[in-house]
């Protein structure tokens, strides 16, 4: 199972507490994780990435294993520790502004 940590506002929107766990079939990539997340929590569509282009929203960042994965290709495999559920995939609101 993949562990995903959402920012506080999106946890509220999705009505979840703490981490979300998702089953991801096949290669574990950003795209696969976000597809699974949005399928389980459709109210999150459009809040992390654009509805149509599927590009990451400007002030949202992705982290895993203490690495900034925001600029990685959405089809690049995530770190093994994330893929194995040892470390969470972090979705973070960029820390700037109010």
């Amino acid at each position, binding site marked *: 199972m993949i562990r995903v940590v959402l*920012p*506080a*506002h*999106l946890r*509220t*929107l999705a009505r979840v507490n703490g981490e979300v766990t998702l089953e991801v079939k096949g290669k574990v990539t950003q795209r696969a994780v976000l597809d699974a997340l*949005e*399928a389980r929590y*459709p*109210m*999150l*569509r*459009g*809040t*992390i990435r654009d*509805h*149509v282009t599927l590009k990451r*929203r400007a*002030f*949202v960042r992705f982290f895993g294993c203490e690495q900034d994965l925001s600029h990685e290709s959405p089809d690049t495999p995530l770190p093994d520790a994330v893929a194995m559920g040892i470390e969470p995939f972090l979705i973070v*609101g*960029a820390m700037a*502004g109010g």
Partner: protein
Amino acid sequence: MSGIRMLVGTKKGAFILTSDGNRKQWTVNGPLFAGWELYHLKGSPADPNRLYASQTSSWFGQVVQRSDDGGKTWTPPGTKPEDLMSPDGMPKGESNMFLYDTSAETGKPLTTHQHYDGSQRPWEFKRVWHLEPSLTDPDTVYAGAEDAALFKSTDGGKTWKELAGLRSAKGQLWQPGAGGMCLHTIVLDKVHPDRIFVAISAAGTFRSDDGGKTWKPTNKGLVSKYELPDPDAEVGHCVHCITMHPSRPNVLYMQKHWDVMRSDDAGESWREISGNLPSDFGFPIAVHAHEPNTVYVVPIKSDSEHYPPEGKLRVYRSRTGGDEWEALTKGLPQQDCYVNILRDAMAVDQLDPCGIYFGTTGGQVYASSNAGDSWTAIVRDLPPVLSIEVQTLP
């Protein structure tokens, strides 16, 4: 006894203020959607328990929320537990999907507008400024968007379709004002059900007589001599707000960037009614619930100094449909007041005497239960108020 439910959108959440018909004691509930910008909330005239809210964030974009119980509970349309277990499968999560229509079938809408530098830029959705529920159907609601466009939902906000004919009304000449290129005002007409008025910054007002399929600019008589040297410019006027009394749908009142204006022919022509106002710059404009000739504005010093002239917060009332205005000051701060009142932040109730309400960028919500003769602050320390709507409940 009747009651009042006030829906307050702020920079950091929504608040619901309630009172009985005496309008003396108020209960403040909130914040709802804490930390998000709530540009606008509004109830359905056909079902007062059906509320819609525009929730936005620079980080996470647009969310539409809906309540079916008068604001006690909210969900993005289509994501209630029963929707998630629907035999049709999981919902698509489209209640916040506002796609500009680029199809050839529906009028070949323009795909670019003018940018600040004179270049053409593609339309790009940013947020919903205003939600206007249908006068007759709780599931039908209109959304005014930035970049300026009008969207319509007929399924309670689950999905949205652009009324793209609006952008064909010289859309290539529209350009953003300082607040962005936003469609901020939607006025529906119960006498002419197919008629819709909208106002856009900084494009002007537009009218449709066929339910939103086709549109025309309705800006004749507006003067913006510094911004628009062409006195006959059909679009490009920075309209801040328009309003109408439902019993007299051909009469519109407008607070423009500068100038307070009036039309007696459904927007075909406009004339200035600023009269003796201390400043004719401002944002909101409202009309009394029972007196179609009684109009309210809140003068602001200028476009470069967005606060009341002389630091005195004054609502101005005209009982003559404009031109002659009186200052309403009782209960309002008359020194050292430097707040602003935004375009959607003033509303009236339907009681007699008429109540009028407005919110400030300083977080105060002021109420008058006597048509503006005197005012009290219901609450003083909310986040900056973006919008106020009032429901008069049976």
